[in-house]
């Protein structure tokens, strides 16, 4: 057993942290998300070219640094610390992860473009009615000669307004909610027949409703692997979001701690009040446990699917609950100022709140865990 980061990993973290400290202060972020585009494309370009770190989780053959889930964790944690709205999760973790998993010509073609910062991917998996069941989808991909015809409506596709490509789940066969027949496609976001309705999200990102109307896609857009592949990449994404939560909640805790040392009430810093001291101790406990669970799940991503799913779900359930606890108590300890747009704390709280439900709520993940591990009472 070993919990140490390698020197390369430490360096990756330092490089990114230093870059974000220079570019992603709270005021700069505010401007980015208020801009028409909702981001500063220069940041992504710099990550790709100047820092060259979008390559971190890819194999050396694919032009990467030879990393994997731990590198994604490091990246997500640091991005979380500045509540960055960069499409790293969608593009590198999810899109890149899917391509790594299937390999082949498509991967060889697209991964270098991801590393180079030329491809941004939106993950179009959710639908208006399916909630967290990845197989409960109505979007269809009908075989049409060598290709497919895509029809459907995907909900709340983060990063879609910026995306060059969409990674889409669609049904090629089987009936509603059946696992068999669900497939994954990587398609050009500009394909004819795709329309979008773009909007900001409450946590500062941009997203879209994406509508597919008889969108013709080539046969090689299919990433073979079906629902198993989709579950795998969603598990990887879930753990990456846990990594982001490590950064977000640590900042919530630190910010609250700092505030409590400065803010005076009743003639003393509020951090002198024992009730707030214990609350911040409890927040510390939760932040540490978020870290522990995220590491655990990261290190278990390579296990067989049933065990991987169980442990990812256990981690996400804990992270969801702890993020809620930390976020709510950070706001409460700040008082009114905690729920204004003025201070960073409120923005971290908003992101923490959305992380709670992303890729499944605590209840949903506990349910999945139970189905996998506590159902055998024969």
């Amino acid at each position: 057993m070993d919990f140490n980061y390698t020197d390369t990993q430490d360096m990756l973290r330092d490089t990114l942290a230093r870059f974000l400290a220079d570019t992603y202060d709270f005021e700069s972020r505010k401007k980015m998300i208020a801009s028409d585009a909702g981001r500063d494309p220069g940041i992504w370009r710099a990550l790709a070219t100047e820092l060259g770190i979008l390559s971190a989780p890819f194999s050396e053959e694919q032009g990467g640094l030879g990393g994997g889930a731990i590198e994604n964790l490091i990246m997500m944690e640091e991005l979380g610390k500045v509540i960055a709205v960069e499409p790293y999760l969608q593009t590198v973790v999810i899109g890149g992860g899917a391509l790594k998993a299937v390999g082949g010509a498509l991967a060889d073609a697209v991964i270098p473009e991801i590393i180079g910062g030329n491809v941004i991917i939106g993950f179009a998996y959710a639908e208006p009615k399916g909630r967290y069941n990845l197989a409960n989808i109505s979007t269809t991909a009908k075989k049409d000669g060598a290709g497919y015809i895509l029809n459907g409506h995907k909900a709340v596709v983060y990063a879609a307004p910026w995306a060059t490509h969409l990674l889409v789940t669609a049904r090629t066969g089987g009936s509603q909610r059946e696992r068999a027949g669900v497939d994954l496609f990587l398609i050009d976001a500009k394909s004819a027949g795709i329309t979008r309705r773009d909007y900001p999200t409450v946590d500062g990102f941009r997203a879209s409703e994406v509508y597919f109307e008889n969108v013709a896609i080539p046969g090689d857009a299919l990433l073979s692997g079906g629902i198993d592949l989709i579950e795998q990449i969603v598990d990887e994404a879930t753990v990456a979001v846990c990594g982001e939560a490590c950064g977000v909640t640590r900042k919530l805790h630190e910010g609250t701690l700092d505030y409590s040392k400065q803010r005076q009430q009743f003639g003393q810093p509020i951090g002198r009040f024992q009730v707030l001291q214990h609350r911040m101790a409890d927040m510390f406990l939760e932040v540490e446990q978020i870290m522990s669970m995220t590491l655990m799940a990261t290190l278990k991503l390579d296990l067989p699917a049933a065990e991987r799913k169980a442990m990812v779900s256990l981690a996400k359930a804990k992270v969801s609950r702890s993020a809620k606890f930390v976020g709510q108590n950070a706001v409460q300890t700040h008082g009114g100022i905690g729920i204004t747009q003025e201070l960073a704390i409120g923005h971290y709280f908003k992101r923490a709140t959305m992380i709670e439900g992303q890729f499944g709520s605590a209840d949903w993940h506990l349910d999945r865990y139970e189905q996998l591990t506590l159902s055998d009472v024969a």
Partner: protein
Amino acid sequence: MNLEFSPEEITFRDEVRTFIAENYPVELRGKQDEGDELSKEDFLSWHKVLAKKGWVAPAWPVEYGGTGWTPTQRYIWSEETARADCIRLMPFGLTMVGPVIYTFGTPEQKAKFLPRILSGEDWWCQGYSEPGSGSDLASLRTKAVQDGDHYVVNGQKTWTTMAQHADWGFFLVRTNADAKQQEGISFLLVDMKTPGIEVRPIITLGGEHEVNEVWLEDVRVPVENRVYEENKGWTCAKFLLAHERSGIAGVAASKRGVERIKEIAKTEMDDDRPLLTNPFFRRKVAELEMDLTALEYTELRTLAGEAQGKGPGPESSLLKIKGSEIQQRITELTLEAAGHYGAPYFRGFGEGDNEHPIGPEYANRSAPVYFNVRKTTIYGGSNEIQRNIIAKMVLGL
């Protein structure tokens, strides 16, 4: 001991129900439920209907325009208005400064201000909190120095709800810097159009402009606008805080909130079944109903005590604590129900925008309302302060 309404009370309830059905403004329907931001016009629209009927200030003494209702009738009133999803009027005039004026004010003050509060002519705001004095209200530093028949007020207030619309504000100011904290404070009524007042918006997490900073620079306030004695303003403030707490349980509104969640969860799907059949979602609803029932009967016991002349004491802190926690849990459940559609940030339709909202209608405002309602455990004396009050005043610690 019994829980039944008398025949008279049932008649009253039916009268209230009919009145609301026939008179609640059509354009307001659904707005409270959806958590829509409400305009000044929205509030005034319902206010004026009630004012015309004489029901706008149920708790006021009859001589000042109250209804003379019993506590049970007032309970029925709040039940029925919540049940019908009526918007809740702003409290600053009706349940805050109004009672202070009729309790502590001069005959001139009563004659001048009370009718305009009832009619809706004056929109009030509250100048209490300051950047440096939140929970520690008595540490406020905005000072008023007498100059002839005026006070000259300088300082800064914050969290001033709806000050952007206000005609008048009631302000706590320091009139004696040498006295012990709570003994040098006076209670002033300030015309918000007086030169030297600047109102600056504070935008909250959901994007709402509800609260403001109010900057006061050499603001001249006639001495006749001071309520009660100079340096005795804390008496008014304490009276008002207790008054504020007793209504703050918000039982009737929370009941409506829980009903709404049930409605949502009957149609919203959780994979292949209605969300309300998910055992854990359903359990959270049941737990809300459980805790809300406990709060309701605790409030009823308090009301019964009040009817016997026991004023709303520090026990009412219980109502504030539990009431606010329940309000927050309701917003948490709504956001949970929204699933993916909690994320889109949608600020209502622009002119001529006829598109459908994104996701189910209730979901649009679920996250902003969730964020916004975090305030309920902070304002009106934070829940930490309420627990301090219980420890000190009730438990003698």
